């Protein structure tokens, strides 16, 4: 049992490590992403500065101008760094490389989690610091107490796992339909709006806010970003409990559908 755990840890760590090495070979692409992050945040700074001036208030729904911008640093960091599991599955079906990735002695889903994680960790660090640098200069220092770093990381990690499970469910349809572009697009728009990527859910009208808060998407983006700008232990406990609950639901669905999906795999090419 202990030996199995050790071997599996070594195996999945090696998978994460090799993708990290591979990502380092794409230094240019990573730099491009951080430039995109800086540009988009610069636009947000201008937009929200104008909005706060127009409203003429120090805070909107409890968030200051500085809080809002740092909230957006975190949401953009998550969205630009998260794993692209569904696309990866779809690519594997289309180019036939699924023949390799599905036939090796590991759990296919864990393989992809480890595979994506190596790249994601690097992107998280680069994107966050690129955005943080800009917002520090233009708006002010981060409103986050570093004492809460560890609990925040736990919530961020759970957010990534939850997103991975949802992406996995979308990706599974690639076993049958090959292309997942349309469903993937709908999911990303849900994250943009109902997940709170573009606007903090606090700014929504009460009805829409309650709907968004009841859906799982906010636990991928809004919940960890909101903790980042105003950490509260009671809120944190509530967030990670809800993240764990949604992960349970989606992971179970993913595992069950993956078993069924394996029977329907079709692979392109030769």
């Amino acid at each position, binding site marked *: 049992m202990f030996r199995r755990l050790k071997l599996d840890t070594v195996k999945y760590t090696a998978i994460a490590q090799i993708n990290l090495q591979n990502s380092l070979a794409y230094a240019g692409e990573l730099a491009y992403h951080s430039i995109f992050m800086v540009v988009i945040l610069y636009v947000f700074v201008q937009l929200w500065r104008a909005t706060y001036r127009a409203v003429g208030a120090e805070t909107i729904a409890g968030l200051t101008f500085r809080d809002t911008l740092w909230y957006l640093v975190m949401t953009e960091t998550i969205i630009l760094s998260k794993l692209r599991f569904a696309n990866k599955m779809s690519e594997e079906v289309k180019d036939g490389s699924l023949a390799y990735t599905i036939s090796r002695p590991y759990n296919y889903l864990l393989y992809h989690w480890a595979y994506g994680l190596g790249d994601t960790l690097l992107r998280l660090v680069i994107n966050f610091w690129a955005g943080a640098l800009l917002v520090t200069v233009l708006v002010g220092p981060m409103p986050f107490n570093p004492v809460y770093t560890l609990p925040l990381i736990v919530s961020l990690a759970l957010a990534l796992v939850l997103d991975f499970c949802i992406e996995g469910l979308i990706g599974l349809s690639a076993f049958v339909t090959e292309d997942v572009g349309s469903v993937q697009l709908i999911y990303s728009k849900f994250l943009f709006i109902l997940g709170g990527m573009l606007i903090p859910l606090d700014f929504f009208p009460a009805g829409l806010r309650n709907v968004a808060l009841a859906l799982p998407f906010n636990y991928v983006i809004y919940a960890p970003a909101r903790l980042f700008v105003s950490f509260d232990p009671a809120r944190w406990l509530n967030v990670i409990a809800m993240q764990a609950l949604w992960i349970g639901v989606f992971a179970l669905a993913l595992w069950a559908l993956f078993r069924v999906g394996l029977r329907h795999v079709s692979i392109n090419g*030769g």
Partner: protein
Amino acid sequence: MPIITVRDLRKTFQTKRKQPGLMGSLKAVVKPELLTVEAVKGISFELEPGELLAFIGPNGAGKSTTIKMLTGILYPSGGQASVLGLTPWKDRRKLAYRIGSVFGQKPQLWYHLPPADTFHLFARIYELDEATFKQRLGFLVEAFDIGDLLNTPVRKLSLGQRMKCEIAASLLHRPQVIFLDEPTIGLDVVAKQQVRDTIKLLHEHEGTTIFLTSHDAGDIESLCKRAIIINYGQVIYDDRVSALKRRYLTRKVVSVRFAERLENGFALEGVEVLKVGDYGVKLQFDARTTPVESVLQRLLDAHSVADITVNDPPMEEIIRSIYEAPPEDVEREG
């Protein structure tokens, strides 16, 4: 006792059919037309330990689908198969430790990293301890002569070099059976020979059972003792390669490029001239009645030759010959 047993194995796919143009696309969305394709139609065969089998056929014959069922990637629509005593699609992970596969058109090495990195990764995936991995890598490096390639990014390797590394990567965990799907596809003559030598060495040195698919009759001729030919999902030939050669690989095609212009046309006894130009000819002949050596010798004696290639007929032609042969001359199955 057979290492691979296949009984009445079948695979049916459903694919969408779409009429061309915008209307066709709209129709496909509203009312998709599904087409059932029988990729493998009840094939049966056995493979003994240590055999080197050529599993051949034209494009779309069902070769790769069969391999994917035998490696547990695809579930069959019917029939049974056992590889090393395991049912591939039920015991996929257990079987993965004992088999290897190389898909010639699909790279498994990490493109931007040197092969050594992929080898290290595979050592972890297949749970090799450090000493076993080092020993095994040392053997493969020497056997395949890839020492100089280990630390070069894969994108900088030639196709032949890459393929040697691809095969070596699939052998790290010392599989008992290896499935090679078109390992020589797209390679030039030298690289093809290198890969063939590698396969030969693997078979002779380690006694690995090899299941080889190829479009190239040369691969089969130089490597395998037994061949199974599959066409439209059915086995149409299962016998020794020597018999296949004797019956169907008799015709050779020779392309010659001359160093000097042909002044007085071209003729050679016992050969059919397919094409003739100012500086080259394309010939074909039956090697049973006109030996290859004799044709080459006569060409070299009579002309100043700049380049010459000898080719086998394409697989499609061999299959056509099998279908056209009298029934008693062909062993049919399925």
